[in-house]
């Protein structure tokens, strides 16, 4: 740490004077229980270049980032920077080695100012190592290089929106003393187009000055723009390296997805929808399917002048049964809130949520209980904390919320619960050795199936899902897609929030795109042609057409 360089009057860039050193990764491995998140990953990141780690969810990108950031200790393998082997036992040691990381989650301290958040890794117990005047100078310069409308350094972070918080996190990495390796885990996701381009340009500059820049992304449009080399991961292993020049979409997808052909075929089968008989729905609802004509939907969920955020215009929407409606948008633009309103788990600040039935009766939703009574089920995103009961068995996780329907004299009927679970478990292909096993023994995808089975057992009229395929393997995804299509065919309302554009475009009859807490676009499938992803993407970034 060079004191004179710290205090010299040169404002920015802070890390431009680092000596270029390559980062050599030698057979890095990490397992979590039976899951091998990273297997023998070896690669040399050359100084002065930028790289993209591409791969689907669960391919090991984030595990790699966390190891290099010192958050996770690797099981095996070596990290050598400029010929010097590195032992990382904490984030501090990574920071001292010149590694600056932006994690996938936007890690900020709400109760501190922008300035304090940017210099969170500064040293010094009594006095901060970097004097405040210089902090302000550096932070303002970096922030204004990142955004045309940067937050003020004195503002508290809890006053900022998601995009601005993301800027703070990126600025923190850029302001880190002596940073020579930049790790960015999906870090430009929340930024709008122009800021995201500016940020990428800033990192390109740093790479040109001798730093190593490593992005992770699964978004093709981003992969195309950045990265001299694209390192593709699949199931924790490197499946290929592409030069920027040889990058094409099919080539990348092939490297990213295991047996790309079969997966695509599965996906298409799922999207084309409903070929499989709707056993689950027929058996659980006990009602004849398709009793209403398409002209008059069985159920309409209506949002009347609902406000998602005080700063945004109100939202008026009608969501009808019999189709799969997708809510799209960049993370934190209000689509998840809208779904919670629809599910009755959160009451809007302004406006009303109504349920219109085929017969003409109208119910206004104010409480979760009313939503449940109206047959609306809401399946939250955070499976671990809001979905499963981690200490209970698979069967109890399935049966508890609907146990009332099956109890006799107040006693639970295990046999009846088993009987109710059996057809659903078969239909959803829940793979487990025993229903008595703890739910946590299942993979994420199978846990999700149990949760969906739980609510199908409640005979829902409308199923609302917040990112149901997050962290779910591709086979299970296909199962879920098929199920959602079936539910729609059986005249149920299906609404889902998803972060995967492909999934929405492939699955939905209608996509409502949110931008800054307002509806930016309401797109509908015309005949058999799917909704165009470019249109959705444009609306997500606030470009109205």
């Amino acid at each position, binding site marked *: 740490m060079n004191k004179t360089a710290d205090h010299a009057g040169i404002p920015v860039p802070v890390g431009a004077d680092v000596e270029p050193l390559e980062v050599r990764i030698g057979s890095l491995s990490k397992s979590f229980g039976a899951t091998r998140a990273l297997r023998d990953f070896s690669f040399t990141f050359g100084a002065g270049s930028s790289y993209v780690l591409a791969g689907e969810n669960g391919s090991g990108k984030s595990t790699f980032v966390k190891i290099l950031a010192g*958050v996770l200790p690797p099981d095996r393998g070596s990290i050598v920077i400029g010929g010097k082997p590195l032992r990382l036992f904490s984030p501090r040691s990574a920071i001292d080695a010149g590694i600056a*990381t932006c994690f996938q989650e936007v890690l900020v301290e709400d109760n501190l100012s922008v300035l304090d958040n940017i210099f969170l890794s500064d040293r010094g117990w009594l006095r901060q190592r970097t004097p405040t005047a210089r902090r302000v100078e550096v932070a303002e310069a970096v922030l204004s290089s990142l955004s045309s409308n940067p937050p003020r350094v004195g503002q508290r972070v809890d006053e900022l929106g998601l995009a601005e918080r993301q800027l703070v996190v990126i600025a923190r990495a850029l302001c880190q003393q002596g940073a020579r390796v930049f790790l960015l885990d999906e870090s430009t996701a929340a930024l709008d187009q122009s800021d995201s381009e500016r940020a990428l340009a800033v990192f390109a500059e740093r790479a040109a000055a001798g730093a190593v820049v490593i992005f992770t992304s699964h978004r093709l449009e981003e992969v195309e723009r950045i990265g001299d080399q694209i390192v593709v991961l699949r199931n924790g292993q490197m499946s290929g390296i592409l030069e920027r020049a040889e990058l094409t979409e099919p080539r990348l997808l092939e490297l990213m997805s295991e047996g790309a052909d079969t997966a695509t075929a599965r996906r298409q089968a799922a999207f084309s929808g409903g070929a499989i008989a709707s056993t689950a729905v027929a058996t659980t609802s006990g009602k004849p399917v398709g009793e209403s004509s398409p002209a008059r939907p069985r159920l309409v969920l209506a949002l009347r002048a609902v406000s998602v955020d005080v700063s945004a215009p109100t939202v008026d929407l009608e969501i009808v049964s019999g189709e799969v409606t997708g809510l799209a948008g960049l993370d934190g633009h209000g689509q998840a809130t809208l779904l919670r309103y629809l599910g009755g788990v959160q009451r809007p600040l302004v406006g009303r949520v109504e349920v219109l039935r085929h017969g003409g009766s109208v119910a206004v939703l104010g409480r979760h209980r009313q939503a449940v009574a109206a047959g609306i089920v809401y399946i939250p995103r955070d499976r671990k904390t809001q979905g499963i009961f981690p200490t209970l068995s698979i069967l109890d996780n399935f049966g508890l919320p609907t146990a009332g329907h099956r109890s006799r004299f107040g006693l639970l009927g295990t046999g009846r619960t088993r009987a109710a679970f059996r057809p659903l478990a078969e239909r959803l292909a829940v793979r487990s050795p025993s229903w008595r096993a703890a739910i946590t023994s299942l993979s994420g995808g199978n846990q999700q199936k149990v949760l969906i089975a739980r609510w199908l057992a409640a005979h829902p009229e409308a199923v609302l899902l917040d990112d149901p395929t997050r962290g779910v393997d591709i086979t299970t995804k296909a199962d879920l897609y098929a199920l959602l299509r079936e539910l729609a065919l059986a005249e149920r309302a299906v609404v889902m929030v998803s972060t995967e554009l492909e999934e929405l475009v492939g699955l939905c009859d209608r996509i409502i795109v949110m931008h800054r807490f307002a509806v930016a676009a309401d797109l509908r499938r015309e005949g058999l042609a799917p909704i165009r992803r470019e249109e959705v993407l444009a609306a997500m970034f606030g470009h109205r057409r």
Partner: protein
Amino acid sequence: MTVWLPRFGWFLFRRYGYAAFATFVFVGLLIANAVLDPVLATSTGFLDAFSTFAPLVLLAAAVTPSVLSGHGGIDLSLGPFAGFCTVLIGTYLNTGVLGQAYVVVPVVLGMGLVLGLVNGVIVTIGRLQPIVVTLGTYLIVTGLADHYSPGSGGTVPGWISAISGSWSDVGIAGGAVVAWLALTRTHYYRWLLAVGRDDRTAYASGMSVAAIRTTAYVIGGMLAGVAGLLLTALISGSDSTVGPNYTLTSIAAVALGGTSLAGGAGGLLGSVVGALDIFFIENLLTLANVPIFSLSLAYGSILVVAMVINGVVGRQSGRLPHGLLRTTAQFVADVGDAT
């Protein structure tokens, strides 16, 4: 109205807004007490009252750093520790060289430091729930006090009993608070708030979460040592039973003072005001001749009501985006800017 005044108000609110309710209550109670109990307004009356509430004020202050450090942080062992100090001084550190200030003060502060270190290390290295860990040390310290207690009063050095009811009492308590205020200007304090709010972010940013948390417990232990000195001065003897009573009251003072028991928000000044509120409520109830058997009932009810109001007023989420107080303070500041 000039422009700087609303701006200054907004600054005060941002810095000390968490204690706004406690301060509001404090002003009301102060007036009520001064009217109903005119003795308080005299110099001796004030000093007597001060020496009565000083141990509680300092213990409330002492609990605050551990609460701020987050992750369920709390230190139950500080009340008994103050009681232990009375036993220590009243039985052992009262004659000859041992009774001199330059021995007593470092010993008491040093033991506070050790207690905080033990609590902090077990909590952070052992990754255990602070409430359970400090309940254990609470029992140990209570047991030590009982074990070494002489059974009857004990004697304390003259200089200690002279503290009570004199301006040096105010000086010592004030000195501890000033020392804390100096601490809030350090880089460490920002770390403490960061660790208290979100320790994952803090850890990922390279902070030593364990060291920062442990230090919070150490600071609390040392403040409790000061509280122990003032408590010894107040009772002028040794009493192993007096300490534990302070534990729950001091935590109530912290909560009333607006420090979030979830960590990362609040501050020591709030706890001080919260402790003063509690003292004045007790004093008022005594003045109102509430029967001794109903005192706890009345006092508890008032405390619950006060906490509920505090919670509703200070709430950061809910129907109003940032809470009523915050909106008002911002509005006043904006109007000030506009004029």
